[in-house]
């Protein structure tokens, strides 16, 4: 079951009409992509590359102009599938303020399951569990507008967890956060993937956040420029430059050392790995 296809983009295009020029613009063009159960997929691209459109297509908020999107085999363009799909695919957006509906933390987390018609006792259980999963249980009675950005975003994640989805799409959830908030949110998301087996699609432009992914997808000009393991994607420096992206800083140091003749393997992307490699070269291990 682990490799079952959860989301399938089948030759998907998404267009909109530019009011100024009255031309049809492609936000996404002929994109095919498959996300399997349990995967941690990071989607990278600069602003305006079309990466955020992917998120809204994945749970039938947007419908493809051409091609089809399937979630667990359900076609997103079929109206009856709308709610089953949105129950399966949670989405967390960029601006934490604009996705919180209620003024009190636990009441906001309860909003999703309430909409699904879950019995009250079960909602209570799910809300408590979801808040514990994002380390916000102690804040359950707090006012949402007084929380920090990172805390608000964790409440938004809990709101999704309480609906018990199989996959959560994160649409640049860290873009508006400070470093502390970003760390908190990243830690929670990685834990959800590792410990609860939650399938994660993570859209961002922070390269560092991609290092721990199972798979990296690079979106550029509405198309997919690369799709593979972090090691293979970050090795293609020309492609990254073309897409307006940087190599993660540690990968850059490793690359520089490699190009100066030191034996640093191409698989080095994290700080721990590079420390080990340098110590080995220095004869310290």
């Amino acid at each position, binding site marked *: 079951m682990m490799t079952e296809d959860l989301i399938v983009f089948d030759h998907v295009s998404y267009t909109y009409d530019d009011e100024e020029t009255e031309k049809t613009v492609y936000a996404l063009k002929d994109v095919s992509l498959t996300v399997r159960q349990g995967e941690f997929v990071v989607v990278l691209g600069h602003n305006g590359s079309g990466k955020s459109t992917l998120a809204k297509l994945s749970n039938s908020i947007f419908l493809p102009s051409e091609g089809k999107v399937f979630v667990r085999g359900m076609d997103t363009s079929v109206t009856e599938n709308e709610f089953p799909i949105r129950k399966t695919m949670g989405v967390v*957006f960029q601006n934490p303020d604009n996705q919180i509906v209620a003024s009190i933390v636990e009441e906001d987390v*309860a*909003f999703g399951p309430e909409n699904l018609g879950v019995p009250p006792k079960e909602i209570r259980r799910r809300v408590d569990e979801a808040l514990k999963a994002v380390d916000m249980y102690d804040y359950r009675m707090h006012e949402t507008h007084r929380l920090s950005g990172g805390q608000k975003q964790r409440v938004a994640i809990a709101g999704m967890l309480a*609906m018990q989805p199989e996959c959560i799409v994160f649409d640049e959830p860290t873009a508006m956060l400070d470093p502390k908030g970003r760390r908190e949110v990243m830690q929670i998301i990685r834990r959800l993937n590792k410990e609860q087996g939650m399938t994660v699609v993570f859209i961002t432009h922070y390269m560092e956040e991609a290092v721990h992914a199972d798979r990296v997808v690079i979106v550029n000009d509405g198309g997919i420029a690369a799709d593979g393991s972090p090691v293979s994607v970050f090795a293609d420096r020309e492609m990254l430059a073309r897409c307006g992206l940087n190599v993660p800083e540690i990968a850059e140091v490793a690359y520089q050392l490699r190009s100066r003749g030191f034996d640093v393997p191409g698989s080095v992307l994290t700080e721990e790995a590079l420390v080990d490699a340098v110590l080995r070269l220095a004869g310290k291990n």
Partner: protein
Amino acid sequence: MIRDITIGQYFPGNSFLHLLDPRAKILITLFYIVTLFLCKNFFSLFLLLAVAILSVLISRISFRVILKGLRMILLIILFTAALQIFYNSKGTVLWKPVPAWKFAVTDQGIFSAVFLSIRIVALILFSSLLTYTTSPTQLTDAIERLLSPLKLLRVNVHALSMMMTIALRFIPTLIEELNIIISAQKSRGADLDSGSLLKRAKALVPIFVPLFVSAFRRAYELAFAMDCRCYNGEKGRTRMKIMKLGPRDYVGFAASAILTAAVVVTSYVPLSSIFIFESVI
């Protein structure tokens, strides 16, 4: 500063008042307000004020917060009091500064100024406890339940209550945003505090255009987020917190009824008849 506003805020807690059914709280508050207007003499007024203060004690909300809330309406109190003193010319004249003027300070004027001020203080004290001890969602849910008979008239009560929930949620966010926009435009030399009325009205454009643009953007994004959380109106929706009237609420209702009865008796039944009643016993 706008950020210091405490009226309408919720302070989580576990006091008797916090645990009352929100519907009961709304009804009791309405009852209290009506009683406040029925009250005619100082004895019953002080009784009502005492009940308000007692309720604050029960709610365990700090007096500093309560006083801050009262400070906001100090101007209104002073204004009404002044009006009473200046315009109530009945009763014995105590002071007449310029003999040719009609204006005079009378004992009744002062009496009604004091009476009204206390009445407003009691009103604010008691009614702000409703929001201090009830979360906005519970409050709007309760209003939805209380107004549910209107459904027979095809009023979409659920939509109304959802709108209230969202409004209450976004008011602090928009106030914060308003503060930032004001500061930013002031940084570019916007002058909001001087000039003719027309000039001042014009000066609001740089403040309100960005605020509205932002409010619409937020509304647009929130609508997406609510879709993602399967919001589909009232149909099939359940609630985490079930509202059920319990012994506590009946105690509340009883206390409320006794208070009203006491006020009505002391205000409208002549004192002599009470004494007669006592002498019979």
